[in-house]
């Protein structure tokens, strides 16, 4: 009988999440890495679509995450051995995003409850996956902390609290600047609408980050025809060396 009582609740859940939906715009769904690429500003904007009148209290909040491809990373720690600093301990972090930005319309722990963060893996510490460290290492958390610290310093991990502007409880927009050293791949962009810390709606889309033109050609040649690529590099080197030598010999005459 208890199960029957749950049915109306179960029916209500999808209905309530449907009540407010995200309509999204992106400045572009593609980031092209060209020869002059020096990072990219990604503009994410959108609107909340509703069938019902606006509920102003509690206000609607927006959390946006952009995540690069996940890869394993080896984190090494140096220690002093015989007077010099050498790598001693190492922990392999099984999966960590190559890029990760979280933008929110207010302080993150206010607009998103801890439970929802656990469920949707929103913050960077939730996005990193460490399955098991070697038994000799008792402080594995120091290694994941170091990973976040180092990548935050080079702008690969960003926590942008208050960076999402929400107008009239309906329109929202934010700008995320991506650094130049991006990894190629599909970047997952997630948008969460929250009310009192609970996710009421979510939306997901992909942004392709890709080398184009000459960059693409060089990269592919180096992987698919390494022998040709190596010989080409050598040819350019020898030609440049010979050209300069011949040029200077002419100049001196």
């Amino acid at each position, binding site marked *: 009988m208890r199960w029957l009582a749950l049915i109306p609740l179960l029916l209500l859940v999808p209905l309530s999440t449907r009540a407010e939906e995200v309509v999204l715009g992106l400045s572009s769904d593609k980031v092209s*890495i*060209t*020869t*002059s*690429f*020096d*990072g990219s500003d990604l503009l994410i904007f959108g609107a909340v679509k509703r069938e019902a009148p606006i509920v102003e209290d509690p206000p609607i909040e927006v959390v946006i995450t952009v995540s690069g491809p996940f*890869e*394993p*990373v*080896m*984190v*090494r*720690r*140096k*220690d002093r051995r015989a*007077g*010099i*600093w*050498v*790598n001693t301990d*190492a922990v*392999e972090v099984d999966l960590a995003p190559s890029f990760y930005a979280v933008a929110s319309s207010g302080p993150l722990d206010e607009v998103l409850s801890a439970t929802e963060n656990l469920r949707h893996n929103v913050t960077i510490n939730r996005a990193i996956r460490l399955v098991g460290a070697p038994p000799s290492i008792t402080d594995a958390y*120091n*290694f994941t902390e*170091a*990973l976040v*610290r*180092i*990548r935050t310093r080079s702008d690969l991990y960003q926590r942008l609290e208050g960076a999402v502007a929400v107008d009239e409880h309906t329109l929202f927009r934010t700008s995320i600047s991506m650094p*130049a*050293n*991006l*990894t190629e791949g599909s970047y997952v962009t997630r948008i969460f609408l929250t009310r009192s810390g609970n996710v009421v709606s979510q939306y997901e889309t992909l942004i392709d980050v890709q*080398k184009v033109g*000459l*960059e693409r050609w*060089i*990269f592919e040649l*180096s992987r698919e025809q*390494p*022998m040709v*690529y*190596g*010989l*080409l*590099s*050598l040819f*350019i*080197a*020898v030609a*440049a*060396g*010979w*050209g*300069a*030598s*011949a040029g*200077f*010999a002419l100049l001196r005459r």
Partner: protein
Amino acid sequence: MQVYLPIAEVSVNAFLILGLGGLVGVLSGMFGVGGGFLATPMLFFIGIPPAVAVATQANQIVASSVSGLLAHFRRRTVDFRMGTVLLVGGLVGSGSGIYIFNYMKSLGQVDLLVQLSYVVFLGIVGALMFVESLNAIRRAKKVGPQPRRDRRHKSWIYAMPVKMRFRTSGLYISVIPPLLVGGLVGVLSAIMGVGGGFVMVPAMIYLLNMPTKVVVGTSLFQITFVAAFTTMLHATTNYTVDAVLALLLLVGGVVGAQFGTQIGLRLKAEQLRILLASLVLAVCGKLALDLLLKPAEIYSLNPVLN
């Protein structure tokens, strides 16, 4: 002007790289060293991944060495026979160097290997050259008859078998010492991403007793071919040669090498050596400090290759 490097996957200032290439080129022309011992650490410093820096540097060394080699070739200051013997040793050494490099990489100690190699070799070579050059300058200042060239080293070098005549250098010695010197230089080029001229030039002067005049041209001859071999090894196994980075470095480098050759011809051999020695010791000191002082960040990230 920012340029995105396709293999290194970072964006760099083109003029910074051009300037770095030019500086390396001047050194290459002046001393007959590839300049890699200076350029490779500087590429690390501006954020190029070490694997890409080492491999691309090999390609850049080819360009600046060819440029300098041709200048010496016109002046007939290349001992091709000696160069070929050094080269045979160099190719074998380079192959074994890559093997050692990959083994240390699997242990996670490749950075330490590279840094320690730099400190040890630059320290020994720099100190030896510095003391020798100072003595040479002091001797030159003394009045009276100059002492004849030191024949001490020649005794055991001359006692070795498999002798060969090197006409350009005016030597009749065993091929074993030049083979060993070439081999050592090959190992260093694979491990440290350098041409190895900073080891080979002193070895040719002090160990093989070659005339200083042909030393620079002959070492450039060996470096050109060993670096070309190393470039091919890196391009086909690690895919770490960045053509755009190499092009920027070599445009600066080939121009610099021509100026360097001119400067080198105007300076006295002792002055040249004492300058090179000071430079080698300065780089060595910087790297030694990095190993001895506590780094600002004791953690480092490395990609996991499957």
